């Protein structure tokens, strides 16, 4: 194996992990909320975009990326909770058509609102100096920031897993996903649990929006780009399946990470290739039941 090839592989692997982290953070909330509530939120990635813009605004005013990372996801999750309480709860029993139409409308409003406040142009956000550099591995010089994104995703996933598995609240949440009536009958407020899950999903997507800002910038079309990608992850993974979403996000990461090295001009088609491939093998998605 030549040295140049090895460094290409390393670069591809890092891109894969970065992409995997980001796309899973974005899609996780979408698929979990769908699985639990049967609610498909087409405005999900609009919140992700909103977090990007919020991070941009915070960095511009305070100069601190860390403050943005701490604040923006919380703000976005709170806005999301308000929207969920005011609008979405009315539609939990409605048809998917109504849900999609309402949330698409909301996505329009958020997107145009962002344009009104921040204009049509794209912004770049500088990563904090400590993360701005590069490091060497097997002959490849790689951005430290990618490592940071991967570790943020890992930390968040670990925290959420520990909360889900190790705490009483996590136990109730897991039970509510499968037996909502039973959990309700046991005296827990299922509504509150739903809101909590919804908020955590948005929080994850918002974190992705913030860490994405120094990587790809903040721009008006970022919600749409992420929406198509998230839908692909959710469909190919099987509606509502978190492990499915995790694996498909990984596949997308591999295709994106290594594909971009070799066929960069066709990168736009990669997600469709993954979706087509998965659905050929498993027509109902990786973890999709026949009935779903």
């Amino acid at each position, binding site marked *: 194996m030549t040295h140049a090839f090895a460094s290409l592989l390393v670069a591809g692997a890092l891109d894969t992990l970065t992409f995997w982290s980001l796309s899973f953070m974005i899609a996780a909330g979408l698929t979990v909320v769908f699985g639990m509530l049967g609610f498909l939120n087409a405005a999900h990635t609009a919140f992700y975009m909103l977090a990007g813009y919020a991070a941009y605004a915070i960095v511009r005013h305070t100069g601190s990326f860390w403050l943005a990372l701490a604040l923006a996801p919380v703000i976005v999750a709170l806005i999301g909770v308000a929207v969920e309480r005011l609008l979405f709860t009315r539609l939990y029993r409605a*048809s998917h*058509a109504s849900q999609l*139409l309402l949330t*698409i409308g909301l996505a*329009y409003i958020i997107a145009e609102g962002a344009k*009104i406040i921040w204009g049509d142009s794209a912004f770049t956000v500088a990563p904090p100096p400590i993360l701005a550099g590069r490091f060497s591995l097997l002959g490849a010089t790689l951005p430290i920031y990618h490592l940071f994104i991967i570790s943020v995703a890992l930390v968040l996933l670990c925290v959420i897993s520990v909360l889900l598995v190790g705490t009483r609240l996590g136990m109730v949440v897991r039970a509510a996903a499968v037996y909502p009536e039973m959990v309700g009958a046991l005296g827990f407020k299922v509504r509150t649990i739903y809101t909590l899950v919804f908020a955590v999903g948005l929080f994850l997507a918002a974190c992705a929006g913030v860490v994405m800002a120094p990587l790809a910038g903040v721009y008006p079309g970022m919600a749409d780009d992420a929406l198509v990608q998230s839908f692909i992850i959710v469909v190919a993974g099987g509606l509502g399946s978190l492990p499915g979403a995790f694996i498909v996000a990984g596949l997308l990461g591999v295709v994106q990470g290594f594909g971009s090295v070799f066929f960069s001009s066709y990168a736009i088609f990669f997600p469709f290739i993954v979706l087509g491939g998965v659905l050929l093998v498993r027509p109902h998605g990786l973890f999709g039941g026949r009935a779903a």
Partner: protein
Amino acid sequence: MSQTLLARTTAADRGPRLSSAKRAETAATVLLLALLIVAPTFVSRSTVNDLGQAVCLGLFAISFNLLFKYSGLLSFGHAAFFGFAAYAEALLLQSWPGLPLPLLVVGTVLSTAILGLLLGQVCVRRSGAYFSMTTLTIGAFFYAVAFKWQGVTGGTDGLDSFMPQNLLLLPRWSLDNPGTAQTYWLILAILIPAALAAWALLEWTPWGNAVVAVRSNEKRAAFLGYDTHGVKLANFVLSAALAGVAGALWAIDNGFVSTDSVDLSFSTTVIIVALLGGSGWFWGPMVGAVIYIAVSDRLSALTPHWQIFLGLAFVGIVLFAPRGLAGLVQSIWQRVLTRRGRQNV
């Protein structure tokens, strides 16, 4: 909510005699089409141009609503068919500039229908959210193709300077001046028969019954002997073909094709157009298109951020007027009727 949004598509009970609702619907249809036909004689030329856009958008919205109203399927990627037809027509004309107009339209629509048959096999297998997400993904894929395959589609620049020259029966007519009443009427001459055929098929024939039965209760329909997959697929193909007619006519009317016609936001625009007019009436989307073009023209002159009103319209319609304008008119009309009935008593 699902019941009201999908409206009551089983137009009142069709007994041996026509119900009054059915008669009112037919009268409204005739009135709407007549208005569309005579409109150019008393509006300005720029309005005629807008009207040409509106009827093509209207037919596109009708094709979307064919799936939504009659099969309960919400497509989020319908622009794939519209855009495919527009590009296909442009490419056909570039290869054979002398192709007669009827042949051109038939060729375009046929190829779009075949595309619909291929994609429908995949899409129609699942309903609900899955259908919407699959169609959205297909829409995104077609946009990516139009955007990337520059050698054929011209990328973001699109394709222009194609115009059917051979109008066969109308040797002295010309399509070279978009926005004229001539162009508009020529478009209507193809558009209205196509739409009327679809209307008649779904509202007046047993086939329409079958489509609605499958939507109403797919399980029972299957156990009564309906090939539910086949019925939905056939309706999907018809919808794609009608979107193809709309795309083909739109390309003729505009004289150029760009990625705008396969854009994802175009797929959502057509949804709002259909819902605005009212998805419960076959022709509602056509009314919605005329209103949409008129209002968006004025709004976009007012503010560059007029699309925020689109979002508000989505939210407002879902929450407050799930049956659109046609639904509002219908309920007001019914209120008037009952009041008059009470006075007569």
